[in-house]
């Protein structure tokens, strides 16, 4: 029972981090129709920058916030590179793959190849059903829930959010209505960067990150986003939770080395399911 609760709660909080990454995918895709394969890189930058700021003596809270803002700025720069010119969607997508590889190189040059971690907000572990839970998990849950509510409300209820969705729904008509489609895309990249940064900030104290962890984080986030057809933030959150919990149970009851394999198998199943559900070309 104790082990079960521990795996479940760990899985939920890791899942929420995947959900944050998935939301970044959804946000950028909903506005630009670009699948941003550099999404995982934002998390790495978020974690690494927090680490450096903490090491430089900047207090907790401020470091994390600055790192998230920096990730947002990186998102904006990536956005300018990926969608700034008048290029086809497929080219933008390939650019994001390039940016992801480029980010790994930058990460390795600045932070090296050893895994990086820092202690989360200091505090006692607490006990639920006999399971020791780090306080960091609680922070993950609260922070991500706040962000989810804000994103869901922002997209679903506000005029600005609807205008953002209109950009991907029909870019030409959006321009006719006076919406600056390019600027909306850059805003989406900025917000996507910040969401990815937040994911990195939250997960680094729980599991040390290496410069190339963006691939596994990105793939899991992408898989979670696929659950919602890349367009539904709500289903993306659900997808993240499923992946997080599945991963922990596989690691706990089977073997940690099978985590990624199971996540990838789930991704393939989901892609096949989506392909069946949505007619060919429906997600382009």
């Amino acid at each position, binding site marked *: 029972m104790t082990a079960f609760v521990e795996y479940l709660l760990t899985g939920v909080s890791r899942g929420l981090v995947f959900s944050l990454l998935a939301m970044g995918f959804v946000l950028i895709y909903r506005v630009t129709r670009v699948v941003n394969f550099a999404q995982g890189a934002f998390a790495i930058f978020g974690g690494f920058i927090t680490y450096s700021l903490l090491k430089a003596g900047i207090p907790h809270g401020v470091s994390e916030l600055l790192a998230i803002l920096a990730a947002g700025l990186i998102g904006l720069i990536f956005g300018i590179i990926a969608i700034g010119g008048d290029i086809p969607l497929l080219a933008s997508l390939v650019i994001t793959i390039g940016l992801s590889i480029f980010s790994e190189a930058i990460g390795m040059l600045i932070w090296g190849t050893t895994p990086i971690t820092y202690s989360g907000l200091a505090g006692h572990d607490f006990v639920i059903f006999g399971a020791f839970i780090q306080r960091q998990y609680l922070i993950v849950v609260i922070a991500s829930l706040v962000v989810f509510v804000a994103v869901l409300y922002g997209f679903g209820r506000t*005029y600005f959010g*609807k205008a953002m969705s*209109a950009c991907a729904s029909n870019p030409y008509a959006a321009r006719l209505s006076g919406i600056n489609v390019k600027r909306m895309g850059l805003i989406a990249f900025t917000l996507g960067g910040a969401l990815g940064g937040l994911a990195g900030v939250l997960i680094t104290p729980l599991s040390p990150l290496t410069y190339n962890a963006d691939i596994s984080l990105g793939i899991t986030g992408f898989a979670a986003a696929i659950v919602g057809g890349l*367009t539904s933030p709500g289903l993306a959150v659900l997808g993240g939770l499923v992946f997080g919990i599945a991963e922990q149970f596989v690691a706990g009851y089977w073997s940690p080395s099978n985590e990624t394999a199971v996540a990838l198998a789930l991704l393939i199943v989901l892609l096949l399911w989506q392909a069946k559900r949505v007619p060919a070309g429906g997600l382009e």
Partner: protein
Amino acid sequence: MKSTESTVDSANRLNSHDSVLATIDLVVRYGVSVALHGVSIHVGKGEMVALIGPNGAGKSTLLNTLSGIIRPASGRIVCNGKLAHVPEGRQIFPDLTVDDNICLGAYRGGSRDPAPMYELFPQLQRLQNRRAGGLSGGEQQMVAICRALMANPDVIAVDELSQGLAPLVVSDIARHLVELNKQNGTAVLLVEQNAQLALNITSRAYVIENGHIGLEGRSSDLLRNPAVRAAYLGGVR
């Protein structure tokens, strides 16, 4: 609106003070090919004007240039008021609700309350929370017109009102346009392949062919014009 090159002489040719929208020697190029060769048209305040012509004549290019989507190579656009564009193929936001589609028409400013639109097209009222992509072609055309009207325009340019719609639906929507024109004094620039419809509901018309204005005149005269009849109204020359 956009103006690239001001030609005072041609501006004087036209009494621009009572026209709400005018183009003067508008030239548009796509790469090396020329889509519009010096097109001059004008739409008076509260006037209903038709622009007819075959596929590829430059009708949609002209409207997209008026809306600022395409930059002209030379020539001028004079717009004394607000222009709203109902694009070819309706171009609604398929993933958004009818309500959201209509409200986004007010993005540039003005009231975001869609209620007046539901008075104009009561059949949209019960569909307001439906995804616009699931509506019929006629309903989508209504949504597209409402979205344009939300900008509170002085002139509304409608591109291919009849495209892909049943004749009864077309005449219903056309009637709404005429009514709108009469009641609010909104000028209408109607771009149509269906010349019969366009000439019937407008007072003046232009015939565009290969990027040139071939003919212009009163719609009733063009309806009787043998060349127009032969080319666009299925008549025998």
